[in-house]
């Protein structure tokens, strides 16, 4: 996966390669809600900077993956049923409800800080862990009776034999669409002069929209196209720049 695969992360909840983070998130072994995606993006920017080159394909790949993660995370964070009910409340009631929740969360954040301090203060006290002296061990063996079920060991070993399912990321990046393809598509449309961005991505899935936007930025950078938008959230009209409306060749690698 190019540059994204080489990305090493050191986050609060996870340390290791970006690929592995994806795997763990998909297997729900790392909780996406606990992953700070902004940190992932920052790490990626550092990574790009260290490489000193921008591989457009690799960058798109990363954008698509991080966009998919963001989407997944935002869905997880969407208000649950009880939050939806909050919208039906009068502002006063909603404020009271929110206040109660904030106070509760804050209370346990305070308690958490206290526990962390307490643990740190205990640093210097260590307890002894040692097997019993031989003569007492013998004695304790004589008094032992069955306390555990051997099946517990079999179950544990069976779990350890389970190889992680082959992780299929296709649903994250599919349908695969490259910046190159979208560049060609936009140039085709530019041959006819001007077009609206909505037309350019009509019927396309989100990933394709994202990649198309990326391709459009590339065209702008190359000086092939520009755009205007009359009103916020209005239609984006794209047109060729001057005579160069019909540019030939592929700019992207």
């Amino acid at each position, binding site marked *: 996966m190019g540059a994204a695969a080489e990305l090493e992360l050191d986050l609060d909840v996870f340390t290791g390669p970006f690929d592995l983070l994806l795997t763990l998130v998909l297997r729900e072994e790392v909780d996406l809600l606990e992953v700070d995606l902004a940190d992932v993006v920052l790490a990626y920017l550092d990574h790009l900077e260290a490489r000193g080159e921008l591989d457009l394909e690799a960058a798109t790949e990363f954008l698509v993956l991080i966009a998919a993660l963001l989407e997944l995370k935002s869905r997880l964070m969407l208000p649950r049923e009880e939050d939806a009910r909050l919208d039906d409340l009068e*502002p006063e009631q909603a404020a009271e409800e929110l206040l109660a929740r904030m106070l509760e969360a804050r209370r346990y954040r305070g308690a958490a800080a206290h526990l962390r301090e307490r643990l740190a203060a205990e640093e210097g006290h260590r307890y002894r862990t040692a097997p019993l002296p031989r003569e007492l061990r013998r004695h304790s063996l004589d008094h032992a009776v069955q306390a555990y079920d051997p099946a517990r060991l079999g179950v544990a070993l069976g779990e350890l034999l389970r190889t992680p399912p082959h992780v299929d990321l296709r649903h994250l990046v599919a349908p695969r669409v490259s910046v190159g393809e979208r560049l060609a598509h936009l140039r085709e449309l530019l041959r006819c002069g001007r077009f609206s961005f909505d037309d350019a991505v009509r019927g396309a899935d989100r990933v394709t929209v994202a990649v198309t936007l990326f391709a459009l930025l590339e065209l702008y950078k190359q000086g092939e196209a520009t755009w205007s938008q009359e009103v916020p959230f209005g239609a984006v009209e794209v047109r060729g720049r001057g005579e160069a409306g019909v540019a030939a060749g592929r700019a992207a690698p």
Partner: protein
Amino acid sequence: MTDLQRRVEALLFLSPDPVSADELADALEISAPAVERALEDMAERQFEGRGLVLREVAGGWSLASDPIAEDAARRLLARPRTPPLTPAQAETLAIVAYLQPVSRPEIARIRGVSAESAAGSLLERGLVEEAGRSQFGAVLYRTTALFLKLFGLSELGELPDVARWDPDPEQEAELRHRLLRAGEARSGAIEAGAA
């Protein structure tokens, strides 16, 4: 040291877990108050200026090293210290400690985010354990004796009152006011947007 105190010291040295005065009394075949008097005297006098301290933790008495030796202990023992808790783990542990038995969905509701991986690592570290199921079938959690021991608590009742982290009435009024304003601004925006 009296002979009784010598025996008590030896028993605490041998026992991997904290031992209550009652257990000591049974083993020593004397009365619990006599053991308690011996322990209190030891804690006050015999362990003064020693390398070991006598502590009351997790419902019993236990010997531990004095912090004076911590740097040297770190060098001598390859065994790493218990790693500190991450913020997510500490919050989850605090909720379990104060509200036990408490279910995972309840923890998630209070924290506002899922508690899945934090609860998993607390289980793995032996600080919390499962305590049956709630009436809706969710796994319940409680803290363990190891939790008390590692946090230097003799019992859960020693945790400070959780209300001490609540804001004072003025701060609370200020928070309420800000929330109310934000709520009004939001519903205003929705109406304007719909118009």
